[in-house]
């Protein structure tokens, strides 16, 4: 038995070192990777410190009552369970391709049982795994200690020993909770390698996930409407508050009885007599063991299936695969009848680039998704409008869509990737490149704006003030024109990795950090671009006695002229920067390609 445990820990340590070696090799590829890694470590530290500090201060406000103990435990159980579910779903959507997986280790020659143990245990040895363990221990320990010292009763007896027992139980419970979470995540990851083989399944899973994210973000509105309140948001401040109220109520108590919830809050419950009954412990332990074993079985089955099935499919499955591929080829061929390069306007470099972008939007999921998001905004605002009884909110979807589309052209060179080199080989000048791209994006954005405007106009009650509507349309146009030019300037200077076209949902390393910084930079610059309009508006208010309509008209007029100036000036600047930094951009894009392969 001892040798099995030792062997399992040794395997886990080997995989942990392998993960670390891979991290180091990725960190060495670019400073962004190093910064991203450092921030992730800081995040783990922050999680621990923040959780503990928050819990400490939160605990001071808690009363020494049974309901306070139960609601605290319920919230803890809910957040832990939701966290595990969220991470599991994220692993599922990685399609089983994240980092080191069972398939990879098997090909390296590792035994299957060793793989299972190694992956589960090594997950707990990562900075985030250790961070979760420490954070959960801290939270349970502080809450339990607070209640124990406050009540002087409970399972732990006298105060000094009681505090020690609380912390010991917190460590043990936390270890068990993190272990179960790790087993869950790894089992789902292994399952993903089986289930997510088909493109249709991946698309459905992604769509469901996106819908779930939207539903959760709109939870306050949904529940408010269900409550029948005239102003639902007055009762429920945000989705976070909604979830918090679930934890404090019956949902939280129910979750305490399931394995992920029970061990993430046991020390808290145990601090008050009568809350941890024999039945509760029996259910918790039995439930934990059953789920643990089932997840191990699921992991083993999934791994077995993936390793043995692999690329070799059964006859019927092979036939089905071939039929699907043939259908896809036929679909490709059908799409090709709408060949943008056959359109009459395509005559040279400028229009050729536009034609290529048209083809990209038709065939590359990454581009196509960017067109979907503005319409998601329309849906969200329509939903909110219905829930709140204020359909006029839908007008906001027009500038929101325009703003999103401006961001679409941000990092566009990274979307092109290493094939951008063809532009360099052909001697395409930066200004020609960016003028073509920007004209295309503005045209596309205007087309989308027209479609969304028609949708908004058609919906009853959405447009009551046509003057306001006209103002919003002009504002949206201004957003598009100057935002697109700004995106081209930033794109020539600051690039970050994008997923490949073959795997549009697999984010390459280092992307998260850069994707946070780039839009922030964009927003700051975008705000500065509104200075002329802002100054004009201030002057019109301060020195002239004009109607609000006149003031806004002047603002939009001035800003509109500047927007055109920004468009041409920005595009010229972007072209100049592109030419100056061309070789460096190619080196960066090659680096990104290597990251995608890592």
């Amino acid at each position, binding site marked *: 038995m001892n040798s099995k445990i030792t062997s399992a820990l040794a395997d886990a340590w080997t995989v942990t070192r392998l993960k670390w070696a891979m991290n180091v090799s990725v960190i060495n590829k670019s400073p962004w990777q190093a910064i991203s890694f450092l921030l992730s470590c800081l995040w783990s530290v922050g999680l621990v410190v923040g959780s503990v500090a928050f819990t400490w201060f939160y605990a001071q406000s808690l009363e020494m009552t049974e309901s306070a103990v139960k609601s605290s435990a319920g919230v803890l159980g809910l957040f832990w369970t939701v966290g595990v579910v969220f991470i599991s779903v994220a692993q599922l959507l990685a399609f089983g391709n994240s980092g080191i997986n069972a398939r990879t280790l098997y090909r390296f020659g590792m035994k299957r049982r060793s793989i299972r143990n190694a992956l589960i245990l090594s997950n707990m040895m990562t900075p985030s795994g250790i961070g979760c363990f420490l954070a959960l221990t801290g939270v349970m320990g502080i809450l339990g200690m607070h209640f124990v010292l406050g009540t002087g009763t409970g399972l732990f007896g006298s105060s000094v020993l009681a505090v020690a027992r609380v912390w010991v139980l917190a460590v043990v419970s936390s270890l068990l909770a993190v272990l179960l979470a790790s087993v869950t995540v790894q089992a789902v990851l292994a399952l993903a390698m089986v289930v997510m083989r088909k493109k249709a399944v991946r698309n459905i899973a992604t769509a469901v996930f996106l819908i779930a994210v939207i539903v959760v973000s709109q939870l306050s509105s949904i529940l408010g409407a269900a409550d029948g309140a005239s102003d639902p948001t007055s009762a429920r401040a945000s989705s976070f508050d909604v979830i918090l109220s679930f934890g404090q109520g019956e949902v939280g108590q129910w979750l305490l009885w399931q394995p992920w919830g029970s061990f993430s809050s046991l020390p808290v419950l145990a601090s008050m007599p009568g809350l941890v009954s024999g039945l509760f412990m029996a259910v918790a332990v039995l439930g934990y063991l059953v789920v643990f074993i089932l997840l191990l079985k699921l992991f083993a089955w999934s791994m077995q299936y993936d390793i043995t099935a692999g690329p070799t499919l059964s006859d019927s499955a092979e036939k089905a695969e071939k039929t699907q591929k043939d259908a896809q080829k036929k679909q490709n061929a059908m799409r090709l009848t709408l060949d943008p390069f056959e359109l009459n306007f395509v005559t*040279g470099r400028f229009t050729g680039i536009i034609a290529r972008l048209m083809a*990209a939007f038709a065939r590359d999921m990454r581009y196509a998704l960017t067109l979907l998001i503005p319409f998601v905004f329309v849906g969200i605002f329509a939903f909110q409008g219905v829930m709140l009884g204020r359909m006029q909110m839908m007008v906001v979807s027009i500038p929101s869509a325009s703003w999103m589309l401006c961001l679409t052209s941000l990092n566009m060179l990274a979307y092109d990737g290493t094939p951008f080199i*063809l532009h*360099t080989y052909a*001697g395409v000048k930066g200004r020609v490149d960016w003028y073509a791209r920007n004209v295309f994006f503005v045209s596309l954005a205007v087309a989308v704006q027209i479609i969304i405007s028609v949708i908004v106009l058609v919906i009853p009650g959405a447009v009551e003030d046509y003057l306001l509507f006209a103002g919003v349309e002009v504002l949206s146009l201004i957003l598009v024109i100057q935002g697109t030019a700004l995106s081209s300037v930033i794109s020539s200077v600051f690039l970050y990795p994008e997923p490949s076209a073959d795997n549009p949902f697999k984010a390459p390393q280092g992307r998260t950090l850069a994707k946070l910084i780039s839009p922030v930079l964009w927003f700051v610059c975008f705000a500065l671009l509104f200075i002329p309009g802002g100054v004009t508006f201030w002057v019109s208010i301060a020195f002239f006695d004009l109607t609000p309509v006149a003031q806004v008209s002047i603002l939009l007029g001035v800003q509109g002229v500047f927007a055109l100036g920004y468009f041409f000036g920005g595009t010229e600047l972007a072209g100049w920067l592109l030419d100056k930094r061309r070789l460096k951009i190619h080196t960066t894009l090659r680096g990104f390609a290597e990251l995608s392969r890592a």
Partner: protein
Amino acid sequence: MTADTAYSSAQPVALSVDGLLKTFGRKTAVDNLHLDVPEGSFYGIVGPNGAGKTTTLQMCTGMLLPSAGHVSLFGQDVWENLDEARAVMGVMPQADEIFDRLTGRQLLIYVGLLHGMKREESRRRADDLMAAFGLADAGKKIVADYSTGMKKKICLAVAMIHSPRILFLDEPFEAVDPVSSANLRDILKEYVAGGGTVVISSHVMALVEKMCSHVAIIAEGTVRAAGTLEEVSAGEELEDRFFELVGGRQETAHFDWLQGGEQE
């Protein structure tokens, strides 16, 4: 045979490399390299991995700034006349350096347009190239669905569509099956026969022997020998001469634990 090329002074030079140097920090990838590629030749640059072949080609094609030295293409400095240089050179992109969401035909038309050709001319040349490369049936298929051999062909077509005077190919036959390799070789020979110059890098001597009229052996960033095949081989087998110049050949290692047969 010295490091300087021995060729007829009457033969015009397509590519002239003089004192080329490239350092990356403390590492010298290309060290004072001299090379002259005659016009109309099929020039092979061979060397072991890490010899500096790719780095040299990147500097010659304006994709990597040299630390020192000059590169001239048909008498004009490449780095001072980059636009003119790009117009006369064709660089074969790697398989991941083409827009694979376009069909083969669309890709060629697009590259033609990028080179400043009119659409009709681009279409005509694209159709000619697709037929010549045996890709006519795959013209409506997106490049992402092409096999490795087909991708190599389309990459070569991309390099040729604007009718360059000189072609640069970096290890074009890597991972390509023998049939596709043979097809590519025939196309390149046809191009050279028509007056074009080809510069190809490889670490496969047999390939260079079969295709090239001239060869330069590079190791550790310097040219060890350059000239026609006969001049460089100097009466020996080219491969043996390669090992002699490059060095690094080791005695066969014997491992007592590596037994292919039955374990005792």
